[in-house]
Structures are given as structure tokens and as C-alpha cells.
């Protein structure tokens, strides 16, 4: 029982982490709080759903759907977010709130309001039995692949030229500009990368959770809570808070399913009262 809850908690934590990691790199680099981030997560799931009807292979859509969402994200960043750089950060919240509304309505028009689900791929269905404990394969897969993505992200940030340019742009955009790098292209790339992470999580969660037009706004508030609990600029903080929140949700759901979301917000309020910058924020 508790093994199951722990596994579930890990899976939830990993999905949260993928979503919030995207939010964090976008916020950390660009100072943009993206309310539409949940909507891009939702688009990932819906595009995955449609692609699945076409190609019928889960692993293909797991790669292609985030790429397509990345293209949409590039358009959004260029046409709407870019003109607002240099204004008060509040304007990006306001703008992306509008984008979230628009995307939700477009999803309703294109895909309808019914609940869908991406089928579990054959290889990943069923359980692995060890002794008396069942490990659902898909859950292990989600945990494993998310860990892989997390490690890959860390390596990109610390070991690649792109990562160095990204970090340099966030600490001194003007200097990077002066060195001949086009910072606005870096910003677009960061936004696209963050959005692709969300879309990736969307496809992964589209198998176990319902794909609905409200999944975007449902997840974004929780994602903000995790972001705030961990500390808005800190990737490690987000890892920790994703784990805390994922476990809380899984274990509280065992005893009082209705309370799980409430606990997240209470925790967020408590953290903000004790340490307004979050667990690991400066």
C-alpha cells in the first residue's frame, strides 16, 4: 500500500518537476511568469492525442508532440511576449493569462469538451512483480524518463555552450549582447525549451490522467505553488518542492482525497509566511 503511494507520489512529483522546471528556466532567464505554461502542457497532451490517431506509436508522439508545441511557443514568444520586455514583470503575467484563456478556448473548438486519454503503449502496460509488491510499468517508465530529462537538463546548463550563453544572458543580458550574441534569440530558445518540457509532461500525463480542456488551468496554479514553495529562481528548490508536493498529494489522497489540493495551498501560504523567497530562493 505505502509502496504504491510512494510510487504514485514519485510519478506525480516527476510530472510536476518537468512542468515547473520549464516555468523556472523561463522565469530565471527571462523574468517572465508564464501563466500559459499549463496551456502548453495541455496542448502537448492534445497534439499527442491527435498524433496517436495518425502514427499509433507512443514513443514517436512523445518526441514529435513537444516539437510541434515548441513551434507554437516560438510564435507566441515572438509575437506577444517579446514586445513586453523591459516593462514591469506584471505585464507578462497579465499577457500570458490572456494567452491561457485563448488557448483553452481554441482547444475546446478544435477537440471539443469531452475527456480523452492517450492509450498506454503495449510494452509499458502491466506490472512488474517483485515479491509481493506490484510495480506498474508505466509509472516506472515516467519516473525513469523524467530523471533522464532532469539529468540532461543539468548537463545542458553546465556543460554546453548554449547553457553558458543562457546563464550569461540571465545574469547580464547587455554584456552578452555586446559580445555579439543576439539575446532575443536566446530568449526565444529558452521559452521554446521550457514549453517543450511542459508538452513532454503533457504527453506523459495524458496516459494516466484525463485529457480535458481545463487541465491547463488546473495544473498551472499547482505549478505556481510548487514554484513558490521551492523558490522561484532555484532549479534544485523546485526538485525538492516537487517531491514534497508529489508525496503529500499521494499520501493525503490515501486518507482524504478531497484535502490533497488544499494541503498544497496551505503549505504554500505557510512557506510564504516563514520564508517569502521560498525554501531555496535568495
Amino acid at each position: 500500500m505505502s509502496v504504491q503511494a510512494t510510487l504514485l507520489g514519485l510519478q506525480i512529483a516527476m510530472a510536476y518537476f518537468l512542468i515547473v522546471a520549464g516555468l523556472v528556466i523561463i522565469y530565471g532567464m527571462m523574468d517572465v511568469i508564464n501563466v500559459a505554461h499549463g496551456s502548453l502542457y495541455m496542448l502537448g497532451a492534445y497534439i499527442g492525442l491527435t498524433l496517436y490517431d495518425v502514427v499509433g506509436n507512443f514513443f514517436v508522439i512523445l518526441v514529435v508532440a513537444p516539437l510541434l508545441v515548441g513551434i507554437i511557443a516560438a510564435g507566441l514568444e515572438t509575437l506577444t511576449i517579446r514586445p513586453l520586455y523591459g516593462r514591469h514583470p506584471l505585464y507578462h503575467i497579465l499577457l500570458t493569462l490572456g494567452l491561457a484563456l485563448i488557448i483553452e478556448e481554441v482547444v475546446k473548438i478544435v477537440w471539443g469538451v469531452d475527456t480523452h486519454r492517450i492509450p498506454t503503449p503495449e510494452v509499458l502496460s502491466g506490472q512488474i512483480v517483485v515479491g509481493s509488491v506490484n510495480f506498474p510499468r508505466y509509472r516506472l517508465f515516467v519516473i525513469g524518463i523524467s530523471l533522464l530529462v532532469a539529468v540532461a537538463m543539468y548537463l545542458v546548463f553546465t556543460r554546453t555552450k548554449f547553457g553558458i550563453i543562457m546563464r550569461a544572458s540571465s545574469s547580464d543580458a547587455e554584456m552578452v549582447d555586446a559580445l555579439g550574441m543576439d539575446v532575443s534569440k536566446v530568449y526565444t530558445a529558452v521559452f521554446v525549451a521550457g514549453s517543450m518540457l511542459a508538452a513532454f509532461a503533457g504527453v506523459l500525463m495524458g496516459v494516466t490522467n484525463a485529457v480535458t480542456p481545463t487541465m491547463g488551468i488546473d495544473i498551472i496554479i499547482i505549478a505556481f505553488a510548487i514554484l513558490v514553495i521551492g523558490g522561484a529562481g532555484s532549479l534544485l528548490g523546485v526538485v525538492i518542492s516537487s517531491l514534497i508536493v508529489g508525496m503529500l498529494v499521494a499520501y493525503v489522497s490515501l486518507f482524504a482525497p478531497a484535502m490533497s489540493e488544499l494541503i498544497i495551498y496551505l503549505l504554500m501560504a505557510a512557506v510564504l509566511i516563514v520564508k517569502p523567497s521560498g525554501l531555496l530562493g535568495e
Partner: protein
Amino acid sequence: MSEKSIPTDRAATKSDGVLGKRGKYGLLTLGILAVIIGPIVDVIDPFWFRLLVNVLVFALFAASLDLVFGYTGLPSFGHAAMFGAGGYAAALLLLNGFASALVVLPIAILVTIFISVIIGWISARTKDLYFSFITLAFAQILFIAAFIDLPARILSPDRITRGDDGLVGVPAYDLGVTLTDPMYYYFFTLVVVAAGVYTIIAVANSPFGRVLRGIHENEERMRAIGYNVTNYKVLAFTISGALTGLAGALYVPHSSVAHPNLFHWLVSGELVIIVLVGGMGSIWGPMVAAGLFVYLEHVLSAFANWLLILGLIYVVFVIFVPDGLSELLKRAVRNPRDVPNNAKRSIKSYINSVRYR
């Protein structure tokens, strides 16, 4: 700092305060117009007449939010908490035998004051985006509490908020006569909303309001001068919250339902949209925008996707008219011939900012 701060109605920084003489006469004219137009609309179409009450309620809600959001510079994303609290308080009282508006409204306001003080006291310790997030968290807590009927889980075996069903069949107020007649309810709402808006303007223009304005412009300086900035913020939040609760208490008996969705973050979000489109800090701009919002919602949802259009209009406003309608109108009145030029200039600068070099 000043360059990057949230722009607001520039007139407000001048000595004549928010809404100059002309603005006040303008609002008074709108009020008188509302008195005349109500009965006329009722004759033409009773359905539209019922909408007018919503216009008034949301005008009060928008003006209250603007007092903290635009005027004081506290970006609250959780004002639905107070709207819902006022609404639920009124609904519970009305459904349990209290009918007099003179009893129910004051109690509903007291309940929201209690909630605003708690939320404000905790939130005022944080700034900017964190303020947004923590107010949002509190509204979500209340949303879930109403949704899962937390009060009943704690207090009693009976249902209290009735969860997702909401409280239905909330009767109208009694004020000597019952206000079931839409005409009575309209005029009652008009008087209460007028009083509420008057309070907001009086607060904004008082010495207290000037301190709030000062906090918006330069918080550190106000602190250095010796003002207890946090207390001012909490008080501003509480006044705004109380009036938002009043709006909620007017709204619920009118629609006869109190549903957890009153607390939903999209309610807060829509009101933030209204305040921005109207013009932050001008008080009258958001009120006008609230009226347009209610009107457009009902005109457009008949044959088009209202939320999609709202989203598009709103995004255009954020990008091209961040000062909102109030500044746009003011500029147009001051210099009508400049309007096409201004439009051309902002489109040009938009294209420049979008293009890769």
C-alpha cells in the same frame, strides 16, 4: 524604478487626486443616467434590465480591486476570495431566516473584513509577484473549502456550503418591502454601489489615500519617512476587500445562487483583466470596463465564443494599450487629431520589437 513601475492614471498623481472635478461630474452623470435608464430598459426587455444589476455589481468589484491593484500597486490575484466570502455570508444568512438588508449586509461586510485582514496581514509582508501568488493561494483555499464543504466536515454533520451544488434559491433582501421585484432590487443596488464607489473615491483622495499613492510610487521612501507601510497596505486591502464582499453580497441574491465558482481564480483573473483594460489606478476606467465586459459577454456569447474574444481583446490591450481605456480616452479628448498617428506609432514600434535583427 519609476520607469519600470506599473503605469497608472497620471492625473492621480496631480494635486486634484483621483478623478478631477470633471471626472466626478462624469460619474454623477452616469449615476443619474442609471436612474433614468433602468426603468426604460425594463420596459424594452426585462432580461437586459437584470443585466444592469450585474453591471453595477461588477463596477463596484472593479473599483474596489483597482484601489489596491492600480492605486496602491498591490497586484492581488485573489480578490475572488472576498467576493465569494461576501456572497456566501449573505446566502447563508438569507437562507436561515435573516432577511433584512440592514442586518445581512453589515454582517457580510464584517465577515469579509475578517477574511481580508487575515489575507492582507499575511500577504502585505510579500511584494510584487509573491503578493499575487499568496493572495491567489488564499482564494484557492477558500475555493476548495467551499467545494468540499470543509465547514461541514469540521463543524457538523449537516451540509453547510453544499459543495459543488452550491446554495440555491437564495431569496432577495427585505427592506420594509421585499426586494423581489427587479425594479426594487435595481435601485437598492444602485444606492449601495453608489455609496461604495463614493467610499473608494473618498479613501483615494484622503490623506490616507495619498500615502497609498506614495507607497505605489516609492515604497522605500515612504518607509524612510516613517510611515508604517505594512499597516497602510493591510488597511487598504481590507477596505478594498470589504467593498468587494459587499459586491458579492449584492450579486448572490440577485442570481439566487452561491456556487464555489465565486471563489474561482478565473473570477480574480477576469477582474484583473477588467482593471487593466479600464486603466489601472483611475477607478472610473475599470468601472466602465466592467460595464462593457458584462454587456459584451451577453451580446457575444449568443453567437460567438465570448472567452476567446475576451482573450484576444485583452491581449491586444496589454500589448498596445497598457495604460487602458482611461488613458486612451483622455489622450483622444485632449488631442483628437493625434489618434491615428499614435496608433501608427505603436504598431510600428510593435513590428520593430517583433522583428529579428
